[in-house]
């Protein structure tokens, strides 16, 4: 059985309805979807405002690593049917969805939520994408803190 795996790095708006349709098979009954958006106002930690984020990707490697994240999900949760991993890049303003992970399965109790959560966590660890934050007080690159290990 061929289950759909969709990964994309795009400058266009993320269409969740359309993506979900592509990840839905006749045997599919449940989907868990995570999306992240540009936060215009951050309260925790270092409270500040964001004017926009500008994303860039090392596209061919990012695609390869998205494919790897999908493979890791399939290995950990064999019941997963469709997987979608989308990162939007370019200049993105507050309230705009920037990233999406969607996992579908026959039933909701065989890991779709955990799989989607794993997907976004792994994307933020190993997929080579970076964002620069522009705020009223200046601009800076946001740096992650994960150092990949051999085999990742």
């Amino acid at each position, binding site marked *: 059985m061929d289950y759909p795996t969709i990964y994309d790095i795009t400058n266009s708006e993320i269409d969740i309805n359309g993506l979900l349709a592509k990840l839905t098979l006749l045997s599919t009954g449940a989907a868990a979807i995570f999306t992240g958006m540009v936060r215009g106002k951050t309260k925790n930690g270092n409270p500040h405002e964001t004017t926009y984020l500008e994303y860039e990707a090392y596209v061919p490697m990012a695609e390869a690593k998205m494919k790897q994240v999908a493979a890791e999900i399939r290995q950990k949760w064999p019941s997963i049917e469709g997987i979608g991993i989308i990162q939007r890049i370019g200049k993105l303003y507050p309230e705009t969805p920037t990233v999406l992970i969607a996992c579908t399965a026959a039933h909701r109790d065989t890991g779709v939520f955990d799989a989607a959560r794993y997907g976004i966590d792994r994307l933020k660890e190993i997929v080579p994408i*970076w964002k620069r934050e522009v705020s009223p007080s200046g601009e800076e690159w946001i740096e*992650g803190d994960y150092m990949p290990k051999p085999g990742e």
Partner: protein
Amino acid sequence: MNQIKVLFFATLRDRAGEKSVNIDIPEETTVQALKDIIVKTFPGLQKSIDSVVVSVNREFAFDENIIPESAEVAMFPPVSGG
């Protein structure tokens, strides 16, 4: 000598002032040795190099790895997508 391409992203690109560079390296050059070469060529990268992430042919690479002929190397800070 092997010719390789080195790509820089995010802070590394800003500090190098270049998106990419083609350089010749001795055969059997390791990632660690390449880092030293790069810092000599781009002194602005000195403060990035200890926490840099390196990929070789789009797979993560580590100090002791040897860089193959015609490799596409990339150097970048820890990722921050999402």
